[in-house]
């Protein structure tokens, strides 16, 4: 990469495009499974192929859902029907997680914003899906089985839980936005400085440094290709660390902004490998799990109450957990795509030093905004994730 003063603007434009492309990719990954059109907004101009997949998913889940009552009834007399019910629950979970209300969008945005690893993404998906099942069983178990409460009481409980969950989503997003937004601004500020530095003199030493950086990061890229393992990500993180140290030293000689530089890569939450997966890291993830998993799925609640009315509460409970497993699979796939898109972005960005840094911070800030936006829209009732049971 040649760093010529005149090439700066086109470089930024190129990066803008990259960021746009990656955000779009992430959006498609979310939306391909989530809803009718990639950008749902008012009437898309042309039908996008993913529409079809969604249409099919949609027809399928309605079809599955309609079979629940028949299979639950049949389970009373016929044990094999219970097995069919479990199979149905699993499929329904997979397909239904494709619809909104399961926080895939929130989870994947969170993963992008928070620089999570694939393993953590999958674990987060699993725990939030299982938590959703636990909440559904708890609500119906306490309200209907123990308290013999009416449907409207249950609706009230679900509404309350829902509100809490949306507030939590906003909080998670706001925290990320605070951390990443600051890092983004720092990266933005830094952009101006090298321009002056390079404009003053593109010394051979500088060029050599940049070149070295380039190759250095490139190697990491290859490593990422070869083995997608947990351990590797840390290696990459360390790589960036040393990189940022390099920047630090470099800038320090020109300006005394060591503080800004240190946080430029936005590792506000400690990039040390042991800390990333350590107790602190998981605790952070827990908030996201709770925020997303707190909201029970209406379908599961209806199935549980129907099973209860038929004297088969435990069959309903089993079905709810199997549904949760299905949900997990879909969410994990989407989480994988999100993490993959992010590391792809990181690889591309890594090759372009400070612009790459800016791009990554931009993506993260954008993703944090998305998390916050989702929470706010859900809380404000501008976006209906899934109407709570009945009316």
């Amino acid at each position, binding site marked *: 990469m040649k760093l010529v003063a005149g090439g700066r603007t086109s470089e*930024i434009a190129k990066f803008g495009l990259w960021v746009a492309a990656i955000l779009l990719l992430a959006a498609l990954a979310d939306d391909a499974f989530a809803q009718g059109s990639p950008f749902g907004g008012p009437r898309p101009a042309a039908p996008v192929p993913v529409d079809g997949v969604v249409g099919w998913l949609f027809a399928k889940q309605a079809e599955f859902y309609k079979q629940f009552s028949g299979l639950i009834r049949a389970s009373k007399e016929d044990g094999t029907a219970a097995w069919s019910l479990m199979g149905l629950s699993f499929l329904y979970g997979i397909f239904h997680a494709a619809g909104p209300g399961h926080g895939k969008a929130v989870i994947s945005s969170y993963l992008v914003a928070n620089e999570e690893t694939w393993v953590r993404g999958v674990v987060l998906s699993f725990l939030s899906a299982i938590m959703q099942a636990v909440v559904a069983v708890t609500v119906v178990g306490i309200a209907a089985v123990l308290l013999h409460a009416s449907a409207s009481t249950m609706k009230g409980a679900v509404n309350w839980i829902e509100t809490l969950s949306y507030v939590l989503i906003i909080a998670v997003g706001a925290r990320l936005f605070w951390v990443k937004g600051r890092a983004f601004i720092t990266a933005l500020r830094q952009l101006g400085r090298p321009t002056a530095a390079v404009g003053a003199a593109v010394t051979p030493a500088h060029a050599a440094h940049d070149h070295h950086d380039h190759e250095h990061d490139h190697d990491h890229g290859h490593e990422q290709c070869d083995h997608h393992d947990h351990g590797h990500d840390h290696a990459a993180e360390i790589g960036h660390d040393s990189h940022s140290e390099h920047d630090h030293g470099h800038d320090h000689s020109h300006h005394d902004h060591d503080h800004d530089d240190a946080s430029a890569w936005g590792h506000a939450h400690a990039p040390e490998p042991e800390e990333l997966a350590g107790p602190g890291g998981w605790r952070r993830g827990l908030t996201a799990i709770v925020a997303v998993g707190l909201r029970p799925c209406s379908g599961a609640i209806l199935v549980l*109450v129907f099973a209860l009315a038929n004297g088969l509460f435990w069959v309903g409970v089993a079905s709810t957990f199997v549904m949760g497993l299905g949900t997990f699979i879909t969410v994990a796939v989407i989480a994988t795509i999100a993490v993959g898109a992010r590391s792809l972005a990181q690889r591309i960005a890594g090759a372009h030093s400070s612009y790459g840094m800016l791009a990554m911070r931009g993506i993260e800030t954008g993703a944090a905004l998305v998390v916050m936006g989702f929470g706010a829209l859900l809380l404000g009732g501008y976006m209906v994730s899934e109407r709570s049971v009945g009316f």
Partner: protein
Amino acid sequence: MTKHFVRMIFALAGLLAAGASACAHPHVWVTMQGELVYAPDGSITGVRYNWTFDDMFSAFATQGIDPKKPGVFTREDLAPLAKENVTSLKDFGYFTFAKANGSKIEVKDPTDYYLDYNTKDTVLTLHFTLPFKAPVKAKELNVEIYDPEYFVDFSFKDMKEPITLAGAPAACKLVVARPKELSVPAGQQLGEAFFNQLNSSENWGAQFANKISVKCP
């Protein structure tokens, strides 16, 4: 340049958030019968509905209600639930979108409402009359019944006569448009035509609307 960049990120984030438009699948199925109520002078005063819910929702709605005879819910047992239903239906405009000669018809609070329970099918039926604010005499009356969020799936019980026109002037004719069928013919590949059936729009549920119109020349 950087300003553009920031703006673009914000725009994309906004797009992403907007992308999560509602498109859940229905959780409640309603099979309905309707009747347009005519006054002696030939004007329409409202709609009389019978809405039968599916068994899962019926089980959910009756949860916690103790009938005198187990499993047999009487009209009296269900009276509080019926009141609750019509009250909360108001927030959804009774899922009824009526127009007379192209202008919107305002409705009043339902009257004569009650729920009954079919012990054989274990389903609830909600009966209610939805009165128009003022009697309507129109060359063309359109009524659409649907849930914009498509949480509730409405269908007519009798497609031949989805809505009866008791006491309507003889010249009036009923025209029915069924909602789009979301099904794939057996053995047929999922073609583009099927996918195109599903258009995303702000009023997503509208494509599943049941439309009737009454034309009186």
